[in-house]
């Protein structure tokens, strides 16, 4: 038995399934905020063993999916500039910009690198003193502390050739925006546990109270998700709307204060345009004014004209929980992981990618 096996244990899953079946009284629309949950739910085929009253709705919690095309175009512009080495995390490289993706640009010879950890940039900068190293920072509260730590190291080491393009976003703001849409019918949320490791689980309290929706901060393994669903079912039956911390093994009430302080030292809130959701007040972060020397958006020409999104793509609706990937006319036809039209099909956290990968046909 190890930390993984325990949370994929057959007997525990089947026992939780029985309890959910026994206790469920009303249909419940559960939005999984994070794309990681969508993938776990589909990978373990949980809808096939859960009662039909449980309806999963994918939320906006995939940093690649919610990145507007304009920011992808800025990334492409920065990566195209002579003497720049462009670094970013994971599958942002695949997202189509107005004309092509970063991966296409890399095939044409641009120096574009996918990082496993932002701190790799320190080595890249030392090895390439005559180049500008651009870090295109992306992600929710989970990855922001790493960007802040990188900046702290850059200042400490007095490195002058590293620049940050900050695209960090926060989880509560888009959730508020979704709940304020009167068409949305969400009865409960699965909250991403890795975000709460940093923020603490209390950040969801105002949302749960204001919108009268239970929120279960859940781990990503099938036992975690099943346990969280059982809690949601029980809260729904009782009519309570509390924040349940399922992921007690790593999430505390207040979170990682040291990481929060590090983020606050270098970043401040800003309005941010979310793909499919529009501009959300204080939905993102930017570098504080005093760190302008490191800010790629100030040090380089980032003006771009972006083309409109493809009209057939309904990623925006999917991200608001108003449509499922199957409802999209181009899903699994013109839009596939290899030829994505929308970023929900690109990202390994994206809803369309999860539905395509694991369940495009009923088995």
């Amino acid at each position, binding site marked *: 038995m190890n930390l*993984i096996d325990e949370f994929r244990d*057959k007997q525990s899953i089947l026992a939780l399934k029985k309890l959910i079946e026994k206790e469920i009284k009303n249909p419940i629309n559960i939005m999984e905020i994070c794309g990681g949950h969508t993938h776990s739910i*589909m990978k*373990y085929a949980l809808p096939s*063993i859960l009662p039909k009253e449980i309806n999963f709705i994918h939320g906006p919690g995939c940093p690649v999916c919610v990145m507007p095309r304009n920011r992808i175009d800025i990334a492409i512009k920065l990566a195209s500039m002579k003497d720049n080495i462009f670094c970013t*995390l994971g599958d942002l490289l695949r997202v189509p910009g107005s004309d092509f993706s970063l991966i296409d640009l890399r095939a044409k010879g641009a120096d574009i690198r996918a*990082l496993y950890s932002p701190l790799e940039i320190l080595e890249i900068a030392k090895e390439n003193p005559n180049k500008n190293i651009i870090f295109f920072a992306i992600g929710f509260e989970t990855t922001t502390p790493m960007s802040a730590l990188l900046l702290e190291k850059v200042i400490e080491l007095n490195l002058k050739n590293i620049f940050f393009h900050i695209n960090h976003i926060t989880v509560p703001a888009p959730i508020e925006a979704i709940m304020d849409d009167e068409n949305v019918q969400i009865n409960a949320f699965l909250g991403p546990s890795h975000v709460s490791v940093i923020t603490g689980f209390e950040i969801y309290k105002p949302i749960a109270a204001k919108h009268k929706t239970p929120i279960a901060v859940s781990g990503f393994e099938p036992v975690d998700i099943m346990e969280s669903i059982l809690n949601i079912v029980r809260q729904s039956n009782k009519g309570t709307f509390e924040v349940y911390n399922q992921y007690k093994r790593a999430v505390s009430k207040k979170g990682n204060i040291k990481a929060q302080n590090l983020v606050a030292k270098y970043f401040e809130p800003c309005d941010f345009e979310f793909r499919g959701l529009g501009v959300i007040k204080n939905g993102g972060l930017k570098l504080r004014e005093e760190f302008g020397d490191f800010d790629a958006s100030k040090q380089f020409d980032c003006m771009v004209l972006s083309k409109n999104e493809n009209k057939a793509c309904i990623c925006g609706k999917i991200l608001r929980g108003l449509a499922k990937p199957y409802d999209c006319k181009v899903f699994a036809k013109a839009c596939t992981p290899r030829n994505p039209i929308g970023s929900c099909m690109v990202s390994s956290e994206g809803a369309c990618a999860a539905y395509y990968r694991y369940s495009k046909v009923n088995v």
Partner: protein
Amino acid sequence: MKNISLAHGGGGEEMNELLDGIFKIFNNDILNAANDAAILGNIAFSTDSFVLNPIFLDDEINIGKLCVCGSINDILMVGAKPKYLSLAFILEEGFKIKKLNKILQSIQKECFKAGVLVVCGDTKVVPKGKGDEIYINTTALGEIIAKKETKNIKAGLSVLVSGDIGRHGASVLIKRNQLEADIKSDCKILNKEVLELLENNVKVIAMRDATRGGLSAVLNEWAKQSGNDFLIFEEKIIIQDEVLGLCELFGYEAYELANEGTFVLCVEKEDEQKALEILRKYNKNANIIGEVLKEKASRVILQNSFGAKRFLEVPKGELLPRIC
């Protein structure tokens, strides 16, 4: 498809598209059989090129051992005994002779173990910066003992895997990213277990080593080639905890990670235990993982421990780590 991308070398859907698309001009029955090695009468013939970054994974495993194992295993997979090997090197200017020596010694050692002779070769040098230290091409020849062809896959066969999966791919990732984990590549020649299966007349129908694209690529290729569905039981596939941990960290599927000493077999149901006994002598993690179904929809269906099913997709794109 306008340009070659890194994904075209990944052993997944993009590479298949390349083979089924522009490479189809070489259309002939021998090539179209799509076995690991071409079958020319009683001769098995296979070629492969090796690029590895970094070129040394540990004291024992490096691009030299890999190039011998890769080619020899391809010959074994069609039921042949490997006999001869050619070696062609593309070296980058400035490459250390000491490193080359170490690689050649690994090649020599593996060839000796397999009873294979290096009978011809070639060396080219490219200017500094125009290569990645060293590329090796190998061609292997072998003598067919009991011909195994993937075209003979049919409903009712048992599917076995000769060991735990994903260790080679994971060990490369560990080394490349300077991480620390107790993961050793499975890279090895499979001559002993394969020849024992053949000499004992175990009713093996087809074999394939699960290299690029991993277990997932092999099963999907077989499903496509035979037209049959494959039902695979997830809990029967053994994955080392450290490999699983790495996959969790980066967001990869262990089924898609490369192996270099693990192969997949289709065996007549009546002989599945006999095959398993032999395989377990060489790797305790060998297992019967599923069966070939009658349904003709070319799908690989993965059933998890609590009975839910999903598809095991063909690997796609380049492996990129997840964002969060």
